[in-house]
């Protein structure tokens, strides 16, 4: 009986001491952070909108998938990207252009509220006119502002007839030669 009391007191004292010691230990490992000792203990966060922030858009790695941009001159209006897009957020309307190869892309809208930035459209774009910029600040006040449009606008009716005549004359020339 005697040693059982004595033993339990020892166990009790050890438990209290271990508790105190481990709490002190974990506090001491966190203490050097206050004095910023060593390279591993610098503060990591930065003020975001302030100009002091060290990282800018072009520090991002090369393959970053930021907001999309479509260089409309090279775009041939082939609808590949609209077909492959999982969330169907690309809307394209196009009409026959001045010559047979090129088409006039009147509307090319990417709805960034639905886009999941998977990059499949960029991969499937042959003339790679569609590519990722390094722009990541995409916030907007209304959802409608989130739609980025790269289209060239509707054709006026006379232009449409003029180009139709040009196309017909090309066809005749090609047909004759």
């Amino acid at each position, binding site marked *: 009986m005697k040693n059982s009391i004595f033993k339990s007191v020892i166990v009790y004292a050890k438990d*209290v001491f271990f508790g105190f010691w481990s*709490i002190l230990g*974990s*506090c001491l490992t*966190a*203490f050097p*952070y*206050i004095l*910023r000792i060593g390279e591993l*203990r*610098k*503060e*990591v*966060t*930065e*003020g975001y909108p302030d100009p002091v922030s060290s990282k800018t858009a072009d520090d991002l790695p090369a393959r970053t998938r930021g907001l999309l941009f479509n260089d409309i001159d090279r775009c041939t209006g082939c609808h590949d990207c609209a077909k492959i897009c999982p969330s169907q957020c690309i809307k394209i309307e196009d009409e026959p252009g001045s010559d047979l190869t090129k088409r006039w892309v009147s509307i090319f809208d990417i709805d960034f509220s639905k886009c999941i930035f998977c990059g499949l459209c960029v991969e499937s774009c042959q003339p790679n006119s569609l590519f990722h910029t390094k722009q990541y600040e995409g916030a907007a006040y209304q959802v409608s502002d989130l739609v980025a449009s790269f289209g060239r606008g509707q054709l006026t009716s006379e232009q449409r007839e003029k180009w139709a005549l040009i196309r017909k004359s090309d066809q005749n020339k090609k047909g004759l030669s």
Partner: protein
Amino acid sequence: MNTQGTWIVSWFDLVGLPKDLPHWVYTLVSLVCVYLFVVIPSAVLMSYLDRKLTADLQARIGPNRAGYAGVLQSIADFLKLLQKEPQFKWGLRENLWLVSHTMALYSTLAVLPLGSLALLVDTEMSAFLPFWATLVLALGTMLLGLTQASVPGWFGGIRVAAQTLAGSFPALIALVCAGVRAGSFKWSSLVHSQSFALWGWAAISNPFQTVAFFVFIISGLVILAIPPLDGGLSQSDIHGGVSSYLHGRRLSLFQMGRLYGFFFWCLITVVLFLGGWNLPESLVSHLREGESWIMLSFLELTCLLIKTFFLMLVVTWVARVNTRVRVDQITDFSWKVLSPFSLVALMGASLWAGWRAL
């Protein structure tokens, strides 16, 4: 009320108010001055230091928006809370318990030991009065939680009650240890028995007093449910517990009360164990001959507040690093560890004092 209230008279000369006013005016003015010029600034400074220390501790910048390096952050928080509109309709009962919660705290203003001259209540019972205030504070918080008629509130209230009961016993015993060493419970004699030098402090003078010091601090955290041991107000499992129904200005009143509770418990610990406002003898005697009471009370106040802030920062540092402790573990801890240690400390301190008296 003894005539100690006359310390305010020396400050009146500065302002040029007439001297021969009845005593209660002096006491009233000193209470208001203490609240405005000591409690509010220390609360503002303390909440800023706490956030900055936590940020440094966690490898991040911390508040840097409001004012230079975020100095005005606590004022910004206070204003933000004021303009928030409370969600729930408050009946008479909730207001009653919130008022009782705050009045319990601010009643201790009269008892605050802020310097050898600024002692409004310096009787044999003065060391026990703040202890009474913490119990009423716990009662206010518990009933504040229970009247919310919601599960988080109910759990928060019950937890605060259990914690306070468990924490009050060791706190009282540790208080008695300090009194045994100093021979009486008056603030002036308590501080007078310690000296400015480090080894003169009660906490370091003998091992039993050190144990009493630790027990007193930790049981204070238990009674007031301060961060490492705030099971009653934990965000993760019961949605803020007692404070889950407080919004807007009521939440700021509640938080101000809790911050003041933490501040005044650390202040009392400094006075009891860490050689309160003792200044080097030469300086004190020089000032006393020169009759410059203002400079004396000012220096004593700053020495006291520096030690209190340092103690509060150490507690915050421990709170941020460790996890929140469960309520049944807190009550086990205070019954099975704090109470026996405080009894051992009491026996040791009294033997030590008796041996010294031979």
